[in-house]
């Protein structure tokens, strides 16, 4: 199976989202791409048009990180920061996560677990939100591509609106 088809987002318990994804590389390498600024800047960019001009990482328990993304065409910026709680190379990273823009309220706790099998790595990312409501909001977006996208009529209305 193509690695890009292995991406899954699922709910877990009341307040968690679990993302899994396989990579065709040993976990030592995947771990480095999750923790070294020069690598993170090259992949953690989302859709076309975004760059990450600032990526600061103090990789130790209690150390902080800060990512700043910029979309020069739109002239917008977003940023994320947090604190490392656990670092076990090359199998586990736990850190807090908070957007400087209050897109979702409060702080989330993110756990990365890396399991290697036959030269492939399965990355499991568990995001624990501080309330069920927040989790459900984020999840609905992922599962249904829109808050109430299951309601077709509403989607049609939204389609006619320019959000930029």
């Amino acid at each position: 199976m193509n690695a890009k088809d292995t991406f899954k987002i699922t709910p877990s318990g009341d307040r968690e989202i679990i993302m899994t994804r396989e990579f065709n590389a040993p976990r030592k390498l995947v771990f480095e791409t999750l923790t070294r600024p020069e690598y993170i800047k090259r992949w953690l960019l989302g859709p076309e048009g975004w760059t990450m001009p600032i990526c600061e990482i103090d990789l130790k328990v209690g150390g902080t990180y800060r990512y700043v993304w910029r979309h020069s065409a739109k002239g917008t910026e977003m940023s994320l920061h947090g604190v490392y709680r656990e670092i076990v190379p090359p199998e586990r990273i736990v850190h807090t996560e908070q957007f400087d823009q209050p897109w979702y309220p409060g702080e989330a706790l993110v756990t990365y677990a890396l399991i290697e099998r036959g030269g492939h790595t399965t990355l499991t990312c568990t995001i624990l939100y501080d309330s069920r409501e927040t989790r459900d909001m984020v999840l609905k977006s992922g599962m249904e591509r829109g808050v109430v996208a299951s309601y077709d009529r509403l989607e049609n209305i939204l389609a006619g609106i320019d959000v930029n």
Partner: protein
Amino acid sequence: MTYSQGLDATFAALADPTRRAILARLASGDASVLELAEPFAMSQPAVSKHLKVLERAGLISRGRDAQRRPSRLEARPLAEATAWLAGYRRFWERSFQNLDGLLEQLKSQQKKQRRARRHRRLK
């Protein structure tokens, strides 16, 4: 209200399944409290409470007609929230695809370095 505060209010209002259902109903046309209360088997005061939350979040507006005060869907804040949230999955999908590419590059770099080391030893 700033853009972010607006989104906060929108998310809070949307976190409730009844309010999402009310919005879906309003997507097919304006409706009075009475018309909204019926399909949800809810009392009118209960529906009114939900409508107040939705109105405060800017998701609906209420008509002036003192008797009916029909509710109308205001789609713009919803569109803003939807646009951000729908971006979440897309963000990770794209980022992980970038990571596939980076890992391939790093693997071939490592292979080259290993080959060069072996070459030096053989000399």
